[in-house]
């Protein structure tokens, strides 16, 4: 059996831990640059806010109901996330962290000694007590069903944080009551396709014969179908080997000069390269995109993207940034006020088994790899951006994100500790 432990409105819950008087109050967390709402409590949903709302459009609601607003503080959320996973690991030995607020726990073997539902209820209670973060747990024979179960546990308080799908009857009931887009692995496209084929609920999908699924879908679709029918076949690692890695930002103020944009793009590229190395992969294609502010119709509008393939797939910060900067110089046009830029890495494959090129233009690859590793280690030991590319540095203040409501680094910095007046 698998359990999915999902933190309820995680970012908002983290903020509530360190800010008194927010119990039962509407709270929402904004995206980087304070643009849109990315996380909100049920109370905030109840007053009419939604995930993805642009903040300037809902300012009236926020003022009228006294909604507390926070800027994203990823440092704090990551530290809280580690605590939640740590507590879970203390109770279940095989835990796979899936995202910042979700972890899968492999419960096989535990059913011989424990009532799984009560056991996971105890874990959920401990997480809530130790961190003040409420969690919803789904327990089921497959990861896809466990994820579905956690959605029920979140929606209906009657489950007391844990929803277990352990019988054929419960499975059919859960699939019947869920929406297609609640299913892990069914994206917008797959859902649209299913609807066009006349399939309206996950149950109808699961009840289709295998040949029908094979004819209409590729391997991931078939795997989801099998998982919905109780046959475990998706691994978390497979899901986690990301197909693309993207870092993009909208700027606090609009930028037109090439030099300033270069700083931003180089910084995005090196952030992408870090993520790439962290998962032990290499990328063969670097894309860079820029765009003007679509809300300023009075200004000239421009957006463009440029992709460059590398001769040898790489995870080298210098090489990836050079490619991105080269792309930027191809698409940059003078006289445009840019609001947004980003870097996307694609054609990602595992770092082992890279096809080498005898006439590679980059020399000393082993030494370059060592350089990247050293940079990572320095930044890990002495803090982010201790070592960075010179081109990133100077102009950073120009495109720095706006975060007016950021809370302190309560868990990670001695200067940022929560302070109490007594």
């Amino acid at each position, binding site marked *: 059996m698998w359990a999915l432990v999902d933190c309820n409105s995680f970012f908002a819950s983290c903020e509530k831990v360190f800010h*008194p*008087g927010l*119990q039962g109050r509407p709270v929402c967390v904004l995206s980087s640059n304070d643009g849109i709402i990315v996380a909100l409590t049920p109370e905030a949903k109840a007053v009419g806010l939604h995930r993805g709302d642009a903040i300037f459009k809902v300012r009236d609601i926020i003022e009228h109901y006294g909604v507390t607003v926070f800027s994203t503080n990823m440092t704090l959320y990551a530290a809280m996330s580690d*605590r*939640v996973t*740590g*507590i879970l690991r*203390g109770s279940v030995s095989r835990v796979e962290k899936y995202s910042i607020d979700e972890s899968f726990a492999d419960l096989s073997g535990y059913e011989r000694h424990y009532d799984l539902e009560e056991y996971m209820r105890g874990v959920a209670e*401990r997480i809530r*007590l*130790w*961190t*003040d973060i409420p969690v919803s747990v789904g327990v089921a024979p497959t990861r896809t069903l466990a994820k579905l179960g956690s959605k029920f546990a979140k929606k209906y308080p009657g489950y007391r944080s844990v929803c277990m799908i352990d019988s054929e009857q419960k499975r059919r009931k859960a699939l019947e009551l869920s929406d297609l887009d609640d299913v892990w692995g069914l994206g917008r496209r797959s859902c649209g396709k299913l609807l066009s084929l006349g399939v309206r609920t996950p149950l109808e999908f699961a009840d289709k014969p295998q040949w029908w699924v094979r004819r209409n879908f590729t*391997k991931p679709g*078939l795997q989801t179908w*099998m998982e919905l029918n109780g046959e475990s*076949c998706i691994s978390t690692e*497979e899901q986690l080997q990301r197909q693309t890695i993207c870092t993009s930002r909208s700027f606090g103020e609009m930028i037109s000069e090439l030099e300033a944009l270069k700083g931003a793009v180089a910084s995005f590229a090196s952030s992408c390269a870090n993520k790439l190395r962290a998962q032990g992969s*290499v990328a*063969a294609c670097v894309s860079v995109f820029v765009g003007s502010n679509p809300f300023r119709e009075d200004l000239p509008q421009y957006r463009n993207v440029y992709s460059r*393939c590398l*001769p040898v*797939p790489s995870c080298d910060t210098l090489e990836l940034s050079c490619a991105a900067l080269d792309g930027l110089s191809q698409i940059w046009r003078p006289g445009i006020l840019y609001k947004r830029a980003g870097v996307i890495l694609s*054609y*990602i*494959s*595992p770092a082992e*088994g*890279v*096809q*080498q*090129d*005898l*006439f*590679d233009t980059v*020399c000393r*690859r*082993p030494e370059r790899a060592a350089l990247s590793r050293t940079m990572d280690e320095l930044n890990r030991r002495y803090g982010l951006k201790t070592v960075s590319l010179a081109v990133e540095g100077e102009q950073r203040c120009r495109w720095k994100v706006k975060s007016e409501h950021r809370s302190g680094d*309560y*868990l990670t910095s*001695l200067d940022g*500790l*929560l*302070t*109490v*007046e*007594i």
Partner: protein
Amino acid sequence: MRDARGGARPGAGRPKGDSRLYTFRAGGELARELDSCPNRTEFIRRSLAQSLTQRAGTAQPAQLPPPAQPAQDRIVSLATPASKARGLTLPYFEQRVVAGFPIPLDNDERSQDIDILRLLCPHPESSYLIRVHGDSMIDAGIESGDIVIVDKSRRDPSEKEIAVCELNGEYTLKRIAVDKDGTRWLVPANPDYPRFPINDGDAFSVWGIVTYIIHKARD
């Protein structure tokens, strides 16, 4: 399908571009030299690059060395500069006569370092650091500017313990006492401050219990 076999393998196949495939046979010495390289492609590439740069002096267009016997010699001679030659190590058996009775240092008896963090935070996941300002708890040993370690895993402080509480939207740090008639009080540890009743209408909760006080010794 079920065991995830088959399908595309990323990075497999012939690389794009106008590249050509060469195969060649390496004889004894060259083969051994190649085998000893951690990255053969890199080794060959470097050797070729080196030979091409040497030719560049004679203004000839870049081309591959012919795969004949002389080429092998050239590659080997170019590729192993003296600095790269590895030293030879021979096993050396040391036999010493020990006088007296040896006293072995048992691993069990080796001292362990004291892990101060484990003492202060038995459950790191439930321990939080909070800095305090104010002198209302001075008799309990908490002075202004101190850092306290707070354990969230317990919310039922005894009358002797100090709790971080949330009262009507503010955090405070006090002892909690219960009267005979059941009224709860927030009790400071400083005679200059009054105790504070917790009324029924108050929004009150215990955030955590102070386990240790980090106080800098001052002169």
